[in-house]
């Protein structure tokens, strides 16, 4: 399996964010997208997720499920965590697990994996920023998808949470997944660097 982008160009609000960008990642590989603020890291991830249409260029996933498009085989972990404050932790997770479908994991096990099992019945409104992030990460575990698109995945996580997430990413890569992560901080795993934007 190989995720590749050729000659990608992205225009936002009439301003060119990046152009002529090539990227490639094979199964078991992680790509760390770095660059200054406003360089287009989030835009690149949203292009890969099919949420933004590139002005030029193409994105392709070779060797995946031929029936499904790239976005349908990808998890997107964005700045916004897609949690409903009125629903409990367990309800939030089980909704996404049912809605995303495909190969699913037991919801309770996923909550244990991110150390949130003690808060399963708490409404998501009462979670801290770090706990919300942990719950979003549980979503990635609850449904098996080969491609993870992560936008600042470790923001708001404490040291234990970061270590935990590094382990989860390692497991994902070891099971043949691939990761594209936009980040300012070192990911903590072996990752190829993809630098976009100016030399800053």
């Amino acid at each position, binding site marked *: 399996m190989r995720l590749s982008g050729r000659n990608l160009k992205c225009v*936002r609000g009439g301003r060119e964010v990046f152009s002529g960008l090539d990227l490639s990642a094979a199964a078991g590989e992680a790509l760390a997208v770095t660059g200054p603020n406003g360089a287009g890291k989030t835009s690149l991830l949203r292009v890969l997720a099919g949420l933004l249409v590139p002005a030029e260029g193409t994105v392709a996933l070779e060797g995946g499920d031929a029936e499904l498009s790239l976005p*349908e085989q990808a998890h997107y972990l964005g700045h916004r965590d897609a949690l409903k404050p009125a629903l409990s932790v367990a309800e939030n997770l089980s909704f996404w697990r049912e*809605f995303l*479908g*495909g190969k699913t994991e037991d919801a309770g096990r996923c909550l244990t994996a991110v150390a949130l099992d003690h808060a399963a019945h708490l409404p998501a409104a009462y979670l801290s920023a770090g706990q919300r992030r942990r719950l979003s990460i549980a979503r990635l575990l609850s449904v098996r998808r080969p491609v993870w698109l992560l936008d600042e995945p470790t923001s708001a996580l404490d040291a234990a949470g970061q270590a935990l997430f590094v382990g989860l990413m390692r497991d994902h890569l070891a099971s043949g997944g691939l990761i594209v992560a936009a980040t300012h901080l070192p990911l903590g795993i072996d990752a190829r660097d993809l630098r976009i934007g100016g030399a800053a």
Partner: protein
Amino acid sequence: MSALGALIRRDIRIALRVGGGALIGVLFFLTVTVLMPFAVGPDLALLSRLGPAILWLGALLASLLTLDRLFTADHEDGSLDLIVMSRTPLELACAAKALAHWIAAGLPLIIATPVLGLLLNLDGTATLAVAATLLAGTPALTFTGMIGAALAVTLHRGGLLLAVLVLPLSIPVLIFGVAASQAAISGPLPFGTPFSILCALSLASLVIGPFAAAASLRHGLD
């Protein structure tokens, strides 16, 4: 199908929880209808003549009140991104969201109608007629309103815009809804004629609404 079921269950659950839209819609409907007799005066004949129109206007405004959050809430917390990316066709997801909205916010209005009919001096048949037209007509309000709600996603603070966009679309529904109620109460038209057109409006919007909303969401995501 289980994905759509999950989406419908989630939306209904959120609407029924504290701060959800279901109760607010009914309370607003109640307020509008209760205020009318005070504004119109204690003329019972006039009230019962205006009754169906008042109930319809109240239902229209109440459904509009909660409709603007249909997609903006999901857009703000990022859920919409995941819904767009998912294996469920966006058209079906839109239809499921509208259906959930109708169940949580539209049905309670219809259930409240008999109680409010009393306040407007409507007799049993008249109340039943209004409730029947609301049952047939409110899906049209929800499914056409959904188009406006989808457009409002791309324009920040689009709540007021929603009213401007959606109200003209709901005029035919209002005309035939009130006409059918009046026909049942006083004639001379048979009830069936305007009621069939009302049903036709609902069925047409059931088809057009999801496609238009999905197209608008796809175009507007950034």
